[in-house]
């Protein structure tokens, strides 16, 4: 009779051990704080708890920075931390701004942050291309459309979210799973040994990915190995151009919204 309770007791012990480990682990706290901060920051009608949300999100970010492994000396480490903190804070501001124009401008800051992260890894061409193509062309197109299509004041649908709690939970669980996998799979006792032994020597890198003539080498690669892919991308761009023009031309044939409903109203008849 008494032995039947043993598995249950073992389960309870392991569960309490797990709970103790979770309560004392900075990683679990980082994920929980990320969830609470994102939930507080998302627009939910009345403006309450934004400052608390900012504080909680920054605390979560600091915890993530704490559990991440240190890189290089203090100068390297602090430059990297500044760039990644800028990127992540701007990303959070992009998705939580009530004004879509501010969202677009914060997204520009995200692009500058990612471009600096690319440069830090020696990807010079990508750093420049991100600023030129993304911030210079795509983001400006977004702003054009926003200016064309934005009604006066803050719209109802900018001040409310779809299920803020569930969305924040999904994102926090995703980030927690990814960060947990990344931090644990490289630990000494883990089964992911091949990744650590696959490291390349510094001399190989200097003639490879960190070549002095970076852009020339990248160009030679892209126009020899990836020539077919370049052609396919060109066809894709042409198809997208034709498609965008076709959508606009077809849309002109259908009647626009009544003048009272649409802020474009009379001006879109041209």
């Amino acid at each position, binding site marked *: 009779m008494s032995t039947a309770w043993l598995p249950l007791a073992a389960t309870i012990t392991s569960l309490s051990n797990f709970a103790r480990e979770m309560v004392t682990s900075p990683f679990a706290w980082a994920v929980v704080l990320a969830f609470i901060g994102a939930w507080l920051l998302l627009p939910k*009608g009345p403006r309450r708890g934004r400052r608390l949300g900012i504080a909680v999100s920054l605390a979560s970010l600091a915890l993530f920075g704490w559990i991440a492994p240190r890189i290089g000396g203090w100068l390297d480490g602090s430059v990297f931390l500044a760039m990644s903190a800028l990127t992540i804070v701007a990303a959070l501001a992009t*998705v939580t701004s009530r004004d*879509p124009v501010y969202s677009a401008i914060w*997204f520009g800051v995200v692009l500058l942050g990612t471009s600096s992260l690319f440069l830090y890894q020696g990807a010079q061409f990508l750093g420049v*291309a991100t600023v030129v193509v993304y911030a210079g062309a795509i983001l400006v197109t977004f702003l054009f459309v926003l200016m064309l299509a934005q009604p006066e*004041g803050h719209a109802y649908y900018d001040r409310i979210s779809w299920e803020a709690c569930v969305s924040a939970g999904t994102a926090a669980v995703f980030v927690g799973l990814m960060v947990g996998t990344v931090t644990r799979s490289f630990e000494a006792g883990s089964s992911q040994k091949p990744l650590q032994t696959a490291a390349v020597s510094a001399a190989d890198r200097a003639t*490879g990915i960190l070549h002095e003539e970076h852009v020339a080498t990248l160009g030679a690669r892209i126009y020899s190995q990836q020539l077919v892919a370049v052609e396919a991308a060109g066809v894709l761009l042409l198809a997208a151009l034709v498609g*965008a023009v076709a959508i606009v031309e077809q849309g002109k044939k259908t009647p626009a919204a009544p003048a009272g409903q649409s802020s474009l109203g009379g001006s879109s008849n041209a």
Partner: protein
Amino acid sequence: MPSSEVALLQNYLIVGAIVFGIGLLGFLARRNLIVMFLSAEMMLQGVSISLVAWSRYHNDWGGQLLVIFIITVAACEAAIALALVLMLFRRSGKLDAAIWNASREENIAEFKDIEIPEDREETSRFPHLTPAGRRPLVDEESQLYRPRV
């Protein structure tokens, strides 16, 4: 030094995962179509960060080449998506994703928005400068004076 390269890779993967997660949050939670597309672009940025980090770690150009094609596809996506959003806006007058609930099947109930209070004047107020000092005295004679031409 291999261990610092592993630490660099781990840091970049963490940053990429967080940026992707924030983009996911925006795409799931926001209702403005344009903000949703911005969030989708942000997810692409998170993936690009990871790809560049792997490219550095393995000393392989493949990651960077793939990021170039990601930028190309993102440009195509933005062109098509913005044309569609403009057309949808022209028909409905809104950038709300919930309005397309109107194209639901017949046996599905209508989506009801929750009531939120109106945006009050003081919550959407723009900053303004308080006047400081006094208005300078204007000498009308010197303002009206014109030298002979």
